[in-house]
């Protein structure tokens, strides 16, 4: 295939793909008798037009950055971790157990412990499929998908039979003590005169997600382990010849991946809900796959793609608040974005590559 300049590969292709997806979405909106221009304006002003909108967009983006990173790290070792959903659920359980265990004096004390617990639970949930892949050759795609269901069943059992406060109808844990409540952007950036990010769930976890991106970048491109992971991903026989153990790399890459997915829980469980609910992850594990795919498995790409999907969720909510466009349409838009950036990548890439080589040749 023709070579593209890197900037075109990283930015231009996703951008064109997203634009095509939006154009088709616009046609769908016309098809249901609504005004696509108003729809786009509503989404933009709703998601980015106020600190309140940003507060929700960044909250969702934080979730997607964690799960996107999780998928990316595994993918560098050519392991397709579809189990982000289950790993994040288990991470939530870890975070909840920590938050409920002690009457925490201050969030600064609770947060590191909760982070470790979330990461450990997520990693533990990834460890079994990783071991089965490394030692028995059971395909990681199949086992991680199955572990999502086991995670849902386990969480259901724990919540309904153990963590649910007596008499409550909702199968969710008790509220965490106030010592575990993370500072939101509203707490951090509001001044005496103006309230910013009012009521929005975005919290300090957003910065932790950015730090995680930096650490993943350092790991993959600046450490020996990262080199081994990438070598193994590029060519298993070459990696074995170079003395890299496939079992070790498979295990380590999946443990890091599961840990990152599990850490998402400090955002949605500890930061937003402040209790563990049954439906805590609500698909973020799967959106992480699209985010990683679109972000080319690079932390910067993951941030941008995570932000795009955060925008879609919050913008979609605003569509519902102000227009009569149903919520299913936002799923259509998301699906089109995934379709064009993921599955139909070559549809944009090949004509673009021809265009570039023609220019280069002339």
């Amino acid at each position: 295939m023709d070579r593209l300049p890197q900037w075109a590969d990283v930015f231009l292709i996703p951008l064109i793909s997203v634009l095509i997806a939006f154009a088709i979405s616009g046609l769908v909106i016309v098809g249901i008798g609504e005004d696509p221009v108003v729809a786009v304006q509503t989404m933009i002003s709703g998601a980015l037009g106020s600190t309140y909108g940003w507060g929700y967009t960044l909250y969702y983006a934080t979730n997607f950055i964690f799960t996107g990173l999780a998928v990316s790290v595994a993918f560098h070792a050519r392991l397709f971790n579809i189990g982000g959903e289950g790993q994040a659920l288990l991470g939530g359980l870890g975070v909840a157990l920590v938050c409920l265990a002690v009457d925490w004096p201050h969030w600064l004390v609770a947060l590191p412990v909760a982070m470790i617990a979330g990461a450990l639970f997520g990693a533990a949930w990834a460890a079994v499929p990783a071991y089965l892949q490394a030692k028995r050759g059971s395909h990681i795609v199949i086992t991680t998908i199955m572990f999502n269901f086991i995670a849902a069943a386990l969480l259901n059992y724990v919540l309904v039979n153990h963590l649910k406060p007596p008499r409550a109808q909702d199968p969710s844990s008790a509220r965490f003590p106030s010592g575990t409540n993370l500072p939101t952007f509203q707490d951090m950036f509001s001044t005496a005169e103006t309230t910013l990010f009012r009521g929005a769930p975005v919290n300090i976890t957003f910065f932790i997600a950015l730090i995680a991106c930096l650490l993943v970048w350092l790991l993959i491109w600046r450490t020996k382990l990262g080199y081994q992971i990438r070598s193994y991903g590029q060519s298993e026989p070459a990696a074995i010849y170079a003395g890299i153990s496939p079992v070790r790399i498979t295990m380590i890459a999946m443990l890091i991946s599961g840990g990152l997915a599990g850490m998402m829980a400090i955002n949605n469980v500890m930061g937003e809900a402040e209790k563990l609910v049954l439906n805590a992850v609500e698909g973020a594990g799967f959106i992480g796959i699209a985010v990683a795919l679109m972000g080319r498995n690079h932390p910067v790409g993951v941030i941008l793609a995570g932000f795009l999907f955060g925008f879609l969720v919050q913008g979609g909510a605003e569509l519902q608040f102000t227009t009569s466009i149903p919520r299913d349409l936002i799923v259509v838009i998301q699906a089109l974005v995934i379709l064009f950036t993921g599955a139909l990548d070559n549809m944009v890439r090949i004509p673009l590559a021809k265009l570039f080589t023609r220019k280069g040749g002339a």
Partner: protein
Amino acid sequence: MKLTHFFASATAVVALTAGAAVAEPAIIYDLGGKFDKSFNEAAYTGAQRWANETGGKYLEIELSSEAQREQALRRFAERGANPIITTGFAMADPVNEVSADYPDTTFVNIDGWIPEIPSNVAMIAFEEHTGSYLVGMMAAMKSESGTVGFIGGMDVPLIRHFGCGYAQGVKAVNPDATIIANMTGTTPTAWNDPVKGGELAKAQIAQGADVVYAAAGGTGVGVLQAAADEGVYSIGVDKNQNHLHPGSVLTSMLKRVDVAVYDSLKAGDALTGGSMQVLGLAEDGVGYAMDENNASLVSDEMKAAVEAAKAKIISGEIEVTAYYTNDSCPVLDF
């Protein structure tokens, strides 16, 4: 950029005028969606009935994420909507949190439970266990094999509550009866999986069940279908589902969410909070459905027995244990 700016200021104007005008009520449907063929749809039916009768308008949203619970409540409250009606137990906690910030707005929650109800929150609960008790009695009287089935949706306390009342009704008629209880799943998809519902029903029928009660939202459609295919009886839930398979659907356990929503909308500004309204057999909040589709299935003695039990439950002579009392069921293990 200019357009966005124009749009932003335009919405601000709309928001201001909306606040000044007569308050519109709002309905927040839970994650299952407005057209779930069950609980949320019943709320929608009630709202539509109110809109058709009064010509009134209402705001509505179908939630699509957990974080939207508080967001939707705040958005509607700030737009001046009143009352704000929420469906589903998962909204109880967010309503409890948000209500303090909007003292002039009345919030309604159906199905939820909160320990201390704020003065501007009206809680509505249904006595699903008593209604289920009555259909359980009918199941036991109709059963020839002495084995009846129960198929729940997602394994949550509310559904165990349905199953527990049903089991008590069955045992009241036939203490030796066997009750096979299955839940469809542990994720929200369990509310809308008619294929799996059908499989579970077939499995229960293979084990000898000849009446199957489905409390499983959209999944129940598959249960009723399987029962009709296998030539046994089924019991519908929430709304009257007798018409789905006349001659096979023995009856339906009615839960009048539509009436609760209609009444709340009708009360409008006059609605007061601070208490939990429990709708049971006496209030016709729950009950069993009789119509031309199942008239031939229910004998006069069955009807008489069920009516007698209904009267005794209302008078307190029969006490049906609620699952919530001890978070367990005396006659059925889940």
